[in-house]
């Protein structure tokens, strides 16, 4: 008995030594650890987006560090919860700034992003939002984004429906309490005439709390459109598909990147999503090698299929890496403002091949990449054949 205790004690002492040794080896000076700050909703109704961004960014950070870091620097992600709230996002930004963040990856949602960009502009900190798609989210020179802008999606969707699909009569159901949905809707409407589209019915609803779409669907069905445009998120779209089915309406639907995730949302009723078309930069079933490796790692770590927010964030970290390499930043103790000026100059020069496509940037912060037309077929996203 006594021996056992002795062995245990020795083993513990040994373990302690190992721990203290690794602790020594692991500690590094400030010039070698480059902190990427970020914020997004990790709790609350929009948490699914924030968590996806945090996970996606973490995978990229881990991969980059495992491959030797950026110019000898090790990346570190400091991601705070902003609950999709403008005020809390500003607090989160201040927290990561105090913790030594050099660039800001965020925010995830548009409304807080518009608040934080005012702060990063004053500090001249480089800001890259993975998914803040409203126009004002990147209105200053220091801010760039990975996703499409809302107006960009509206225009692209109108052209795609009118020219590529060759359809005429369109009905729209949009969420008039949401910046994302409004942004796409307005631009779509403006572009519709140019694309040869006739808008036969416009129906709106208010917010994610709304669950009853029967009235809107009856009106849309009465107008007999060729296609129904849904510039909304997948939760509401899933309910629209289910209620259209219950009412026995035979309607075709077309959406933007917000519809990504609809198959998972419908779970047992996934057959309802059959034939739904969408324009999106990222699909988890893309056979591309980079995409598949990302999806596989994500599934192993977090036990779910990544959505486009995770993909945007994953690309975001690689974009920061590419910009740092282009600017030749080797010392993580560089001043925030000086770094921002370097990265701004590099952003318009670099081309990044990410999981959401091949991206380049203009000085106004917009990302140029081609949206892919997808149709849901046999429960999978497949490219629309021309």
């Amino acid at each position, binding site marked *: 008995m006594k021996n056992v205790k002795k062995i245990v004690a020795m083993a513990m002492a040994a373990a302690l030594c190992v721990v203290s040794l690794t602790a020594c080896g692991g500690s590094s000076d400030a010039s070698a650890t480059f902190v990427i700050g970020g914020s997004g909703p990790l709790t609350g*109704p929009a948490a699914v987006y924030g*968590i996806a961004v945090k996970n996606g960014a973490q995978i990229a950070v881990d991969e980059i560090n495992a491959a030797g870091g950026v110019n000898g620097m090790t990346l570190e992600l400091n991601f705070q919860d902003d609950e999709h709230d403008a005020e809390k996002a500003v607090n989160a930004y201040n927290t990561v700034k105090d913790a030594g963040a050099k660039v800001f990856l965020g925010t995830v949602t548009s409304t807080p992003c518009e608040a934080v960009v005012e702060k990063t502009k004053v500090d001249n900190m480089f800001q890259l939002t993975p998914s803040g798609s409203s126009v004002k989210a990147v209105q200053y020179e220091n801010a760039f984004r990975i996703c499409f802008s809302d107006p960009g999606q509206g225009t692209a969707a109108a052209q795609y429906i009118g020219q590529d699909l060759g359809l005429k009569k369109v009905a729209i159901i949009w969420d008039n309490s949401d910046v994302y949905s409004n942004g796409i809707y307005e631009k779509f409407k403006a572009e519709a005439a140019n694309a040869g589209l006739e808008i036969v019915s416009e129906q709106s609803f208010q917010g994610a709390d709304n669950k009853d779409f029967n009235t809107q669907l*009856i009106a849309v069905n009465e107008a007999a459109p060729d296609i129904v445009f849904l510039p909304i998120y997948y939760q509401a779209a899933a*309910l629209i598909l289910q209620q259209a089915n219950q009412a026995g309406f035979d309607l075709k639907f077309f959406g933007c990147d917000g519809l990504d995730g609809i198959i998972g949302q419908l779970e*047992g009723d996934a057959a309802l999503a059959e034939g739904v078309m969408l324009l999106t930069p990222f699909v988890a079933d893309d056979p591309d090698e980079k995409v598949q490796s990302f999806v596989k790692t994500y599934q192993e770590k977090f036990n779910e299929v990544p959505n486009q927010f995770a993909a945007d964030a994953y690309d975001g970290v690689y974009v920061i890496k590419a910009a740092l390499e282009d600017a030749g930043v080797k010392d993580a103790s560089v001043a925030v403002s000086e770094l921002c000026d370097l990265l701004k100059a590099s952003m318009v020069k670099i081309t990044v091949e990410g999981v959401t496509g091949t991206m380049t940037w203009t000085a106004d912060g917009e990302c140029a990449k081609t949206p892919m037309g997808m149709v849901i077929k046999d429960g999978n996203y497949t490219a629309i054949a021309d």
Partner: protein
Amino acid sequence: MFISYLLSGISLGAIYALIALGYTMVYGIAKMLNFAHGDVIMVGGYIAFTISVTLGADGWIALLGSIIFCTLLGITIERVAYKPLRGASKLSVLITAIGVSYLLQNVALLIFGSASRNFQALIVVPSVEIGSVTIPGNTILTIGVSVVIMIVLTLFINKSSAGSAMLAVSEDKGAAQLMGVNVNKTISLTFAIGSGLAAVAGILMCTQYPNIGPYTGQMPGIKAFIAAVFGGIGSIPGAMLGGIAIGVIENLSKAYISTQLSDAITFAILIIMLLVKPTGILGKKLNEKV
């Protein structure tokens, strides 16, 4: 067209009515606004979801399990959060109810995560076609269940001895106690029934709008509260009438006036109602004794 709009309004209204029944009953007897009622509905939906989807049990078992769980939850909430405040001001109780509401939402967020889930219907009723109009099965089910519950509740309160005790407590707590009515037990029973009803409402709501998340109960809870006030809070047939009225007004204003203004119109009608008849459609006028 009009008939379709009307029907979808009635089916939405029937859900409001079912939730409003729970609100109005607790208010009528315990004289408190249980703002956590909407969230008990969410819990009811989640329990049914867990039993039927995660554990793979039969729909009826899920229904029963959910009712039992919510009944116990209702009693527990009453014991822990509201009973210690029996003598406190109405405002403290109201704030506590809001606290309980947030507690339930956040516990659900912790356990079930923030992503909303697709809710598979537990009970399937076939649609009925009358001429060119199709009445969805869910609508028939929801209206049927609401009417049955309304009748049973009215009979229970007016005919049974426990119901008489409830009426006595609602009229005068102190006097009821002096007459030998166990006030605490009666209020617990009220909460038990109210929460059991919430479970039924939750399941029917999720059957009609097949989606459940931690915030599912919030907005319907508020709309149902309005329905209860509209119909006359404290009155059981009033809750039914108020619920259907709010649902129909909401849908018709969406259809014929503006989808963007429908909520504004609904609330404006509520304000007018309160100005013209503050006790609601079927509310009793109570003279405050000085």
